[in-house]
């Protein structure tokens, strides 16, 4: 595999792991991390989060992954699935690589 692609995938995996950890530890999602599909919806009955959890999720994304929302308007499109959170962290999280 192309090294640049391999690095991207590795980075994506690490952020995915972090997001799953946030969901389990901070948001009390009662699932094993590998059951949390990247495309699982966060709200409704996907992972069962609700509006109160959304706040906690954003705060955790900031403290764990350094995500700073450039503007309020991004919070809704970013908080749809696990994968959209990973996208958010890739675009607006800490630029230094996330440690494993």
């Amino acid at each position, binding site marked *: 595999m192309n090294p640049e692609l391999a690095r991207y995938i590795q980075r994506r995996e690490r952020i995915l792991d972090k997001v799953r950890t946030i969901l389990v530890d901070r*948001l*009390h999602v009662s699932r094993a991390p590998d059951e949390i599909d990247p495309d699982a919806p966060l709200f409704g009955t996907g992972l069962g989060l609700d509006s*109160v*959890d959304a706040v906690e999720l954003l705060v955790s994304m900031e403290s764990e992954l350094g995500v700073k929302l450039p503007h309020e308007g991004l919070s809704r499109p970013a908080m749809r699935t696990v994968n959209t959170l990973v996208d958010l962290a890739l675009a607006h999280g800490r630029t230094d690589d996330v440690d494993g």
Partner: protein
Amino acid sequence: MLSQMQSLPVAITGMGAVSALGATATALWSAVEEGRDGIRPIERFSTDGFSVSLGGMVPGAISGDPCAAFATTAAREALANAGLQIGPGGVAGRRVALVLGTSLGMHVDGLHLVAAEVAHAVGIEGPTLTVSTACSSSTNALGLGRDLLEAGLCDVAIAGGTDELTPEIFAGFHALGLLCPSKCAPFSEPVGTTLGEGAGFLVLERGDEARARGARVLATLLGYGLSADAYHPTSPDPTGAGVARALRGALLDAGTEADSIDYVNAHGTGTAANDAAEYRAIEQVFGERAARLPVSSTKSFLGHAQGAAGVLELIATLCGMAQDKIPPTLHYEKPRPRSPADPVAGDRPRVARVERALCNNSAFGGANAAVIVGRAEHTAPRQTAAKVLVLGASAVGPHGMDFDALEVALAANVPLRRRAPAFRIESLIPTADGRGMDPASRYLSAAAALALADAGITLRGAKRERAGLFVGTTRASTESEREFRDSIRERGLVRLSATAFTRMVLNASAGTCTKLCALKGPTTTLTTGEGSGLVALIYAAMHLSTRSDVDLLLAAGVDERVCLESDAHEGEGAACLVLGKTPASDASKAVRLAGFGLAGPGDVEEAKRRAIRMAGIDEKDVFVAPDVTPVLGPAPGAAAMFACAFAVASILRGTWEHVLVPDPGGTAAAAVVFSRKGAA
């Protein structure tokens, strides 16, 4: 059958208010008359880092605990306004009850001590009860004050509420995105609420006695209703069904129809979710009249005074009624769709005669409370009390979850020194999602489910709306509290944990339990410190026996350990009784809740005497239930309820005919007598 007769309703003979509009009820009303709100930039603490800086703060310097200071000032004003003196030459202190509604207060190490301080300051020596159902606390407190008077447990009730706007509460609402960037504009744009604070009290007396002493009757308290949304920790049921149940309960209790209500003082916080759900409820209850009914929100003047909101808003309503005026909704400029047709928009009260007004409040945990007041001359039906039966019992604690294990442990009389057992809530309530539940919620939900199972009751359909939950406890879950404190320490106030914040209200575990067990009828959470559960049981018995909108009440005490050491001698868990009443539940089980008594702090003898007298038995025939504390460890909310579960079991087994469960209590002494059905 319950018989109905018209009688003089409880009279409101005095009121006092401390709010953003000043330190008296007069100051509150003159500001409303002049269209002046009390919302200003907050100065008492820093709002740096928050997107909102406004609050409805009580002006001026405060000495001591603001919650107690506000309440003491308001209670003194109310007593003076009623022309009542407590003590020599006036009413005896031990015949005066204090019912104080308060929300978070962040007084986690003794929420009941605020009421104790206020009682002490004004000379109250009777039962001192703290209702804590977040933002509906004081509305509920008024109803409880009424019930105490009608049950003869006091001669005067000082009922109302107090709350302080603390940085934590401000930060919690901010984190939840509930605050309005500008002054809150209920039913209008922009959405969001403005927090406030203050205290308000009403002096309540039995109608005939108030008139006999020549008191000026300001208004009558005609009825009240409680309900559980059984929906969500912070969001109201958007269909409005939960609020509608409280409104209907109040109407039924007042013996009146929706058509007789001339004005609704709404909770109207300004948040999109509350205002829409509340108006949905008003539409459901008032039907086509909703299109012509004046509905206003006093929060546009005061901000959201949390636990004190209901009583302060009622005081605004009463001041208006006295002058044939309706308080307006300020800042109403850009109406939201599907909001009140007549929000009384403007900055001056509307001239209109109001015979009866309805005030509604809703709260975190889904606890709704509505109260109906009328002009002095109105009467209301009073129901004779039905007999209260114990249909089922449960106890989840250090002994385990097995009811019999409690008896074994008590018989062995050895300190258990362990936590309540670990269990999955789904194993007891298969349709329950246990995600994020703290131990207090789990214990309470488990105890409720087990008690219902013990009673052989499956709640279906409309029966759920006639089944409720009354809880006595002393503090929010210590696990949630730690999570909350840690989030502030680690991330700062601006980024505190919103999820943990929602569990910091005393009624959080009741909210979860009502949802999981689908208990949609009346709900409340109260505290007296020690003995809280037993007091909740007494309130449940009073409430159940005199109302036609409820068939079943679950009464429970719950505690979660504070100490982290696993072998500490500290109890925890929950014990629950399912109460039913004659004639509906006549066929089942064989234990009656035959008598109860409440008295001032420490006066357990008086509480016992009352309970035994009410049970109509002789003291020598009564077995006194043992104190469970030496075995289970101290458990202020649940201990006496564990003893009640034991009492019920021993009667069913035939060991005793009559068992007395006394508790000297914290701010109120309490006693309950259980009897074998049919025993003389």
